[in-house]
């Protein structure tokens, strides 16, 4: 019980940080909204989807997933900053649970995602996004997105604990998340890619997440799978499997790494 309370104190710390420096929250919502607008109006006109709702219907799930994937970078650089500033030493010399700090941070970043997704959803609605599946499925899609962001947050924890410098972590995380989000069906059909890349894109967790969200928002189009493969046929199940696998690997790994942090 204490461990949970400790984690919540850490989460509260992050919310306080946002309250003290509101610019952080403002910019972390402006960026995805900017992506929505750019993609909607720059690419929207040239990509024919065959759907009545147009490109924006396919785009929104893609941008939602991309934004939650960036949680990895946010978590990683936030934690790395604590590490380099010696704050971690203070936390580790306190009589609190070893996992409290990392759990607290993933919760905080998860809460931030709630705000960001809400603002993006609103922006999407304004530019024509109209999910057609009903409130229950739409809600489920958002829960899925939050869960995806949360599991990637744990990869971020591991990355943040591994690196020496906050800036390196930030750049490194973007090096991972950018190809991950673009080598997918998020913004363009995978059918236009060279054959080997199509397979990569198809098994990419970002693609399965995007496809799963499209399904939950009431769309048929999965942006074309290369074959009748498992991920293209069962994107929801596949995404769930990915999240469980990521958490199963990175939660114990990160907690372990945290308790040993700086012991090298």
């Amino acid at each position, binding site marked *: 019980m*204490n461990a949970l*309370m*400790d984690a919540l*104190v850490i989460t*509260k*710390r992050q919310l*306080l*940080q946002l309250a*003290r*420096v509101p610019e952080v929250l403002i910019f972390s919502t402006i960026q995805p909204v900017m992506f929505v607008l750019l993609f909607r109006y720059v690419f929207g006109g040239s990509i024919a989807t065959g759907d009545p709702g147009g490109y924006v219907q396919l785009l929104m799930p893609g941008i939602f997933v991309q934004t939650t994937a960036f949680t990895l970078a946010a978590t990683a650089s936030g934690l790395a900053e604590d590490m380099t*500033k*010696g*704050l971690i*030493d*203070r*936390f*580790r*010399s*306190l*009589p*609190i649970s070893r996992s*409290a700090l990392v759990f607290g941070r993933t919760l905080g970043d998860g809460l931030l995602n709630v705000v960001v997704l809400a603002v993006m959803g609103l922006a999407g609605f304004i530019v024509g996004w109209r999910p057609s599946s009903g409130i229950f499925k739409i809600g489920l899609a958002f829960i899925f997105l939050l869960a995806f962001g949360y599991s990637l947050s744990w990869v971020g924890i591991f990355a943040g604990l591994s690196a020496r410098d906050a800036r390196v972590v930030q750049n490194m995380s973007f090096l991972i998340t950018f190809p991950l989000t673009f080598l997918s069906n998020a913004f363009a059909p995978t059918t236009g890619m060279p054959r080997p890349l199509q397979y990569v894109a198809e098994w990419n967790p970002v693609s399965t997440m995007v496809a799963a969200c499209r399904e939950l928002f009431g769309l048929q189009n999965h942006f074309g799978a290369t074959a009748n493969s498992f991920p293209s046929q069962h994107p929801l199940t596949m995404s769930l499997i990915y999240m469980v696998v990521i958490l199963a690997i990175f939660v114990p790994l990160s907690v372990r790494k945290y308790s040993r942090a*700086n*012991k*090298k």
Partner: protein
Amino acid sequence: MKSIVAEHLVRTYRNGEVKALDDLSLDVEEGTVLSVLGPNGAGKTTVVRILSTLLTPDSGSATVGGIDVIKHPEKVREIIGLSGQYAAVDETLTGWDNLVMFGRLYHLGKKASIARADELLERFSLTDSARRPIKTYSGGMRRRLDLAASLIVQPKVLFLDEPTTGLDPRGRQEMWGVIEELVKGGVTLLLTTQYLDEADQLADDIIVVDHGKVIARGTSDALKKQVGGERLEVVVDQAHIASTMEAVAKVSGHAASLDEGLRKVSAPVTTGATALIEVLRLLDAAGIHPLDVALKRPSLDDVFMSLTGHVAEDQVIVIDNARGKKKNKNSEAKS
């Protein structure tokens, strides 16, 4: 009763390449202050990190408040306070936010955390800036807040790792005042420092550490005696060297030595400023006008010279310290 005991601590880094601690032992009597004195890279921070459970030694044992730091680190954490070389507080939050947060993490409860935060801010003269982000604090204020954060549950044993490194003279004086108050309150304190005068001012006992080993231990008086106390130095014209040596020897009671290149005559003295006056009188009476007269107090370098026969290996860094903060910061990271 001993509050801190460390026995035969060995700790290496990078797979044994760097030996940070090499069979280091120390103990601190309850309610007293031990200063660990040494240059950068001597192993001071490593000792503190082991005793405060942040690091495990390769071999050796240690207890804090009678509790084994390796077997029961979680119990040790309940009775210690740690304030490191960097102000380990959240810079975007205010001083008040930080202290309340740490209070909650010590499981004080909301009301008690707030009360304790207010009390500590008052005590460390930070009440006026309590609601400002730490980012806007001066170096001295940060260190005081960091120290306050380590005192939330009134620790029995306090570890301060170079509490005044990088502070300006005023910040240093303030910090010393705060530490002296704490010591009067009865806390057991282990303090690391690179400055002999700091150890002199604050500590009951001093250990001098070099290359991860204790090379001397004693009170600051005893150590200074070992170094040889102060030296009287007089620089004169070539023509007056002989008579100056005579005068200096007379004041000192020891034979004077001569640095021919610098035409500097020197000898150990024990009477401080009085020796200066005496030698000036003698020289004046003889019609000699010295080019320079100085009373040199023993520095950490002198301690090292006299204890090890070699200059502290991080000599360059010691010089940097005197010049400014920036370089100092880089070298700190290595220690």
